[in-house]
């Protein structure tokens, strides 16, 4: 072979080698990786347009819509397609009557990935959408979509109970129960919106389009219709709820300018409050108010960071918190019926008994000089079991508390055991998130808290004074307004503890029932029916007898036809003004409603909380309401 031939062969070999490389690559692409590329080719040409399912409505017990949906137009911008950003944003700002800066800020929200269209304006008029569509050339990358937004038919009605919608979080996206939710979609936050998310959220439909490289639609490959979410019917009565909220707010407003705090001599702060209305026969919630509250429409319109900060800063007094289920307070004297029940169970008290009601109480044998005072200084002498509750005589209860301590067994104190049977110190299990458990302190708790915070809690031993304080709903005892309402419900219905329930049923948009939520029994309280009756009868005297702590607050109320069993409470908190409590059952002879109210730093129970409850009862019982005013007589 000549040199030239050899060189030619070498050249041919190089080319043959290159061809071999091509074939190898071709084999990889078309044989080994074909499936992957086929998938990508399909992904390229098939565009899935979600067709959002309308979220279920929320109705009150009478079927009146409280939350439904409205359609709104959202303007979006695809940053990849956007040209001449400033010019386009200027044009857009003009059309939407907003500022270029605001649009620019939304556009560069770092939460959106580069290829995601960014929503820059919500609630654009239909005409603007049409204009943009017709002048697409002037608005490169600008598009709009119609989305459903929550509409709060009754305005600020029950915001805590309803909850609101928020964008799904990255953590939730990993949760299998959110498997069909896409990033950026809204899900329930708080209240029934969160609790009943799986019912309220429908299943989004899908439109399969064939598109070309320019994104132009070539045809429709398939349509999957959206399945709307189910409606949720609440046990709430919208009118009663509104009355409850308004009354609470009125009471707070009035208290701030008319009720004087005894210790400071200034008007009470009345900084916050809560009201719970329950049906004692099944635990359904008829109304639930927490003050201060917020406007859920803020969330629907897209909350700005500033608005959110305002809602969260301490000076706003935490309007997002639902105090009816999450507020924990000493129960004060509203706790006494349950302490009396415990004393009956233990045999210290009986309906026909008489008990000493001196002005002060000293633990026998105690030489430290600790004196426990009654709320009034008069020595009432021996009073009946009923009178002890009607007068709210502290010293009678001190004595029972001490007896529990004296006769405590190796497993601790029976008082706490009996009280817990009423649901105190544990979650009630209400069907909205965020509930607090309250606290029924005992020797074990005191030891633990001392070990954890020796400076704040220097005393590790459960002393007689701890029981004595707890016997009047003070000390380290904490209850939520809801827990108190549930316990009064058990008192009213003959001893059954119900799980409080906000939802009545779930139904299809056409009304077909999907699921019904019956009242769930949690247990029975440990007391004979006759003993319960004795307590109920005593509580009727609280609003009717001359010695009753709330008699003046119920002056003019038709008690003869509609008796009311109630209890006032004035909870003392170190470093704060007293909380005003009131709990009532009506009608006492045929209990239909339990109403519990608290106004934080609102003075005495009879002054602020009692008028609130009275007003709500008037609404519930369809009575002609009297003039509403707080500041009655000063009692415990």
């Amino acid at each position: 072979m000549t040199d030239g031939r050899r060189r030619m062969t070498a050249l041919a070999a190089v080319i043959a080698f290159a061809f071999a490389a091509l074939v190898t690559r071709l084999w990889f692409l078309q044989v080994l990786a074909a499936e992957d590329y086929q998938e990508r080719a399909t992904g390229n040409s098939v565009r899935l347009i979600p067709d959002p399912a309308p979220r279920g409505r929320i109705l009150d017990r009478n079927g009146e819509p409280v939350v439904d949906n409205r359609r709104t137009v959202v303007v979006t911008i695809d940053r990849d397609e956007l040209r001449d950003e400033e010019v386009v944003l200027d044009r857009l700002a003009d059309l939407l009557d907003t500022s270029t800066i605001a649009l620019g800020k939304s556009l560069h929200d770092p939460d959106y990935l580069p290829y995601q269209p960014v929503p820059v304006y919500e609630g654009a008029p239909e005409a603007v959408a049409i204009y943009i569509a017709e002048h697409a050339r002037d608005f490169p990358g600008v598009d709009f979509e119609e989305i459903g937004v929550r509409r709060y038919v009754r305005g600020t009605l029950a915001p805590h109970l309803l909850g609101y919608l928020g964008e799904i979080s990255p953590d939730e996206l990993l949760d299998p129960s959110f498997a069909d939710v896409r990033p950026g979609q809204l899900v329930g936050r708080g209240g029934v919106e969160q609790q009943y998310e799986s019912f309220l959220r429908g299943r989004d439909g899908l439109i399969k389009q064939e598109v070309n490289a320019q994104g132009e639609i070539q045809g429709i490959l398939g349509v999957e219709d959206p399945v709307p979410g189910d409606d949720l019917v609440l046990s709430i009565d919208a009118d009663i709820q509104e009355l409850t909220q308004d009354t609470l707010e009125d009471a707070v407003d009035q208290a701030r300018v008319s009720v004087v705090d005894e210790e400071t001599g200034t008007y009470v702060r009345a900084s916050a409050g809560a009201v719970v209305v329950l049906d004692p026969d099944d635990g359904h919630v008829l109304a639930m108010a927490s003050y201060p509250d917020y406007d859920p429409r803020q969330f629907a319109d897209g909350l700005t960071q500033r608005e959110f900060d305002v809602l969260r800063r301490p000076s706003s007094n935490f309007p997002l918190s639902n105090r009816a289920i999450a507020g924990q307070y000493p129960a004060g004297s509203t706790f006494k019926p349950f302490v009396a029940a415990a004393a009956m169970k233990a045999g210290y008290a009986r309906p026909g008994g008489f008990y000493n009601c001196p002005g002060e109480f000293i633990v026998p044998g105690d030489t430290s000089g600790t004196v426990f005072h009654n709320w009034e200084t008069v020595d009432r002498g021996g009073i009946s079991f009923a009178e002890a509750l009607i007068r709210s005589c502290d010293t009678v209860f001190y004595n029972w508390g001490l007896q529990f301590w004296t006769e405590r067994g190796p497993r601790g104190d029976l008082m706490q055991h009996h009280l817990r049977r009423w649901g105190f110190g544990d979650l009630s299990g209400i069907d909205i998130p965020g509930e607090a458990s309250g606290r029924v302190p005992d020797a074990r708790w005191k030891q633990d808290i001392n070990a954890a915070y020796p400076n704040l809690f220097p005393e590790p031993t459960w002393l007689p004074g701890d029981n004595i304080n707890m016997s009047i709903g003070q000390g380290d005892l904490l209850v939520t307004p809801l827990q108190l309402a549930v316990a009064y419900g058990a008192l009213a219905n003959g001893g059954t503890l119900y799980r409080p329930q906000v939802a009545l049923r779930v139904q299809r948009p056409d009304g077909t029932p999907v699921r019904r939520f019956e009242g769930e029994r949690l247990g029975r309280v440990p007391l004979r029916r006759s003993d319960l009756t004795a307590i109920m009868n005593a509580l009727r005297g609280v609003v009717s007898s001359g010695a009753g702590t709330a008699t003046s607050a119920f002056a003019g109320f038709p008690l003869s036809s509609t008796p009311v069993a109630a209890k006032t409470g004035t909870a003392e908190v170190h470093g704060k003004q007293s909380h005003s409590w009131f709990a009532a059952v009506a009608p006492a002879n045929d209990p239909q409603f339990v109403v519990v109210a608290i106004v934080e730093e609102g003075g005495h129970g009879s002054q602020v909380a009692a008028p609130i409850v009275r007003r709500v009862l008037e609404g519930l019982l369809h009575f002609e309401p009297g003039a509403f005013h707080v500041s009655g007589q000063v009692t415990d």
Partner: protein
Amino acid sequence: MDVTVGRWANREGPLRHIDPTLVAVALGLALFGLFMVYSATQQSLRTFGEDPGFYLKKQIAFLMLGVVIMAIVATFDYRLVKVYAGIAFGIMLFALLLVLTPIGDETAGAQRWISLFGFQFQPAEIAKLTVVAALAAYLSELREVRLDHVWRAAGIAAAPIALIFLQPDVGTMMVFAAVLIASLVVAGARVRHILILVGVAIFGAVIAFHLGIVKDYQIARLQSFLDPAADPLRAGYNLQQAEIAIGSGGLFGRGYLNGSQTNLDFVPEQHTDFVFTVVGEELGFVGAILLLVLFAVLLWRGFRIALLSKDSFGTLLATGVVTMLAFQVVVNVGMTMGIMPVTGIPLPLVSYGGTAMLTNWAAVGLLLNIHMRRFK
């Protein structure tokens, strides 16, 4: 004077030594191309309400003209090419200069076209063949290829490379470089000298990069070749879509006129530089291999002709043509599959484009010519 007539003379006559395989394969490739060009363009032409056969018809016209040109080129003795190579080279340089003047048309940031008598053509395409001829003419005159000859040969290629660099058209520059090296190898230049040349060229390229002479889009394309996923919507987009098209074809393809990547316009430049993606998507591995086999046969005939040639000019000319075709096939097909950088190189005889079609048929004509006159 010795006048030969009769059987013996006829047996050595050019017309009796046409290479039918070469012509058949070239025609086969061109017909293959017609189908592919139609598939690549019909859908989008339809969408715009135009005649779906618009590009096909033009390509058929180019093909017919190309066959005529092949016949003409084959008619005259190829040794005349050696005589006129210098003049052709000069005209070619002038045409390349014209491209850079306002007479030239600009598309996509590059000036590659000039219009003459109502026709648009790309001088760079013609330049490929002219350079092949000029190098063959020069190198065939040398008895021994010394280093200074290597420089001179490089100088011949360098002039059009420089002008094409200004357009810019990196692909064509690379074709010239490949032809230069192949011609030097076959002409007998020392391997050491060729390596020196390559080293100097690489050094020059690095300098060009650093001085910023290379345009941004070329750097971007090179980068996207190295990492196609980095920037899916811009430089790497062509490449990704091309790979998806070919890959989704699988073993047997998605059927002629049935490729979604093709019909929905996902591959840019699909009837020209990326025509191979139509083959890949619609005819699959089997169709792509068939196309490569046709090219292999064409190149094999070319090599065979280079070896059969009775003079070194013919050998060098045929080698240059084969290299020119082979290099374009490998780079073009390779770039659609992501193993070669994306440069504007069409697939010979298959891609849509008039000037390239005519040039390639002229090249086939040259091969045919050498084959026909291998005895005389």
